[in-house]
């Protein structure tokens, strides 16, 4: 956009490596200089990671976290998309229901934990409910926005060709709104990943979030703590990337500008 020449191809690898390398070095040396006995240095984190992988604990935790996300997010999508489409299609209904959503939205899913525990007990179901709750609203909102942003040209064309309202919704409005719905789903997936980690720190005893807390509680293994944190980041990133591949499908790609 601005500075000097167009960056060359090799620079795409050079700069990130440089920055990350410098950061790692900074981390490593500040651990040494502050002579902290507890906070791990990069090599220690690496060893901790290897240890986790070797003891097979890790895979079970990853699986558990992912499983909860799939159930919670899946349920949120299955319920949220039809609801969002309906609310977007009938603005009158939206006008009635929206205030309730606005009030419920700022309440962190974590704050629902006590209530969730009452209904579901401590364990898996409670965390899945929390994930569902956290992903639900972004999905609904994205669907509402997607539907109301469909250019009126498309709707008029649909009516012109003799489509009944249900046909219009299915064959014109839904495909037209799909890019925006996908973005909403991707964001909700990111939120689901955040919520699962938090929920596992409080209400369950397996999963990556639990691993973080447990590593500290049973032995102050901060090298495992940091290893787990980094893993959480990497897996979350993979989920996000995977979803972005969906956005490349041709019948949807038209809705996305060239994103990074």
């Amino acid at each position, binding site marked *: 956009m601005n500075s000097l020449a167009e960056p060359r191809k090799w620079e795409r690898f050079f700069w990130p490596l440089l920055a990350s390398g410098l950061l790692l070095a900074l981390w490593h040396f500040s651990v040494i200089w502050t002579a902290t006995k507890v906070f791990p240095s990069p090599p220690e984190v690496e060893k901790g990671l290897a240890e986790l992988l070797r003891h097979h604990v890790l895979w079970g935790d990853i699986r558990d976290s992912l499983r909860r996300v799939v159930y919670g997010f899946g349920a949120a999508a299955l319920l949220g998309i039809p609801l969002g489409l309906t609310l977007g299609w009938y603005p009158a209904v939206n006008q009635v229901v929206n205030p309730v959503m606005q009030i419920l939205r700022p309440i962190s899913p974590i704050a629902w934990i006590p209530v969730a525990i009452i209904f579901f007990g401590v364990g898996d179901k409670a965390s899945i409910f929390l994930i569902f709750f956290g992903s639900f609203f972004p999905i609904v909102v994205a669907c509402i926005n997607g539907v109301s942003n469909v250019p009126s040209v498309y709707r008029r064309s649909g*009516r*012109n060709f003799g489509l009944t309202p249900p046909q219009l919704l299915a064959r014109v409005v839904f495909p037209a709104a799909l890019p925006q719905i996908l973005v909403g789903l991707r964001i909700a997936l990111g939120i689901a990943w955040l919520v699962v980690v938090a929920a596992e720190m409080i209400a369950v005893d397996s999963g990556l979030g639990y691993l973080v807390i447990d590593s500290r509680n049973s032995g102050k293994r901060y090298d495992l703590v940091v290893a787990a944190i980094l893993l959480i980041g990497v897996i979350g990133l993979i989920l996000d990337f995977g979803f972005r591949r969906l956005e490349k499908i041709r019948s*949807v790609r038209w809705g996305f500008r060239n994103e990074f």
Partner: protein
Amino acid sequence: MALLKESVVAPAPKTKLSVEKVGMTFKRDGKSTPVLENINLEVADGEFVCLLGPSGCGKTTLLNAMAGFLSPTSGRIQVDNEAVNGPDPRRIFVFQERGVFPWLTVEGNIGFGLFKLSRAERQQRIDHYIKMVGLQGFEKAYPPELSGGMKQRLEVARALAVNPDMLFLDEPFGALDSITRLVMRGELLRIWEAERKTIIFVTHDIDEAVQLADRVVVMSARPATIQQIVNIDIPHPRDISSTRYLELRDGIFKQIGLAHKI
């Protein structure tokens, strides 16, 4: 005895669309804006009529009313002696290229309105119209991959595929560069001569109107009334440097008040 010379008189053309004393007023926030006033027009079956006027004068509003997307505040519009009260697949509206559906391929778009046909029939129609508008080779392409002119042709093909009686075109070539526009005008006429639909075409380009239409309806600025209806009696293909063409065109120029030098 001399043979009786039969005078072959063409039967009086059937009226397809009739607009009677139509007026349109928009109300917003308590203010009423009259947009159309006392529009009277009869369009014959198979005719090519242009609505010509400056931008924002209300010709698009009139077109929308004719196609059934708007109800006139006063007066009535009839097609085939039936009142128009909503959009209908027999009267297809063609927008500027942005009306094509970007999530469907070229084939998908053209086949969009054909959901009542069998698969074989549908494919047949699609192939026919792809050839007619010259989009062979792009059947599986998506609209974002097409140029402006191609998208416009796609939209026309989609409209024609459902075999409507009437086509309404709202400045369809407005977004194209002037060379493509010339080409597209020729294409449109070619298609029209192959399948004689009744066409109502809105434009603000005087040359375009005189090149294409059988009759040009010259409209005033808002609130729009019909200033004049000019009969273009030159047969196609029209030579745009012929005297008659220039005469007609300059007549309209003067009517609109643009007879000045730059």
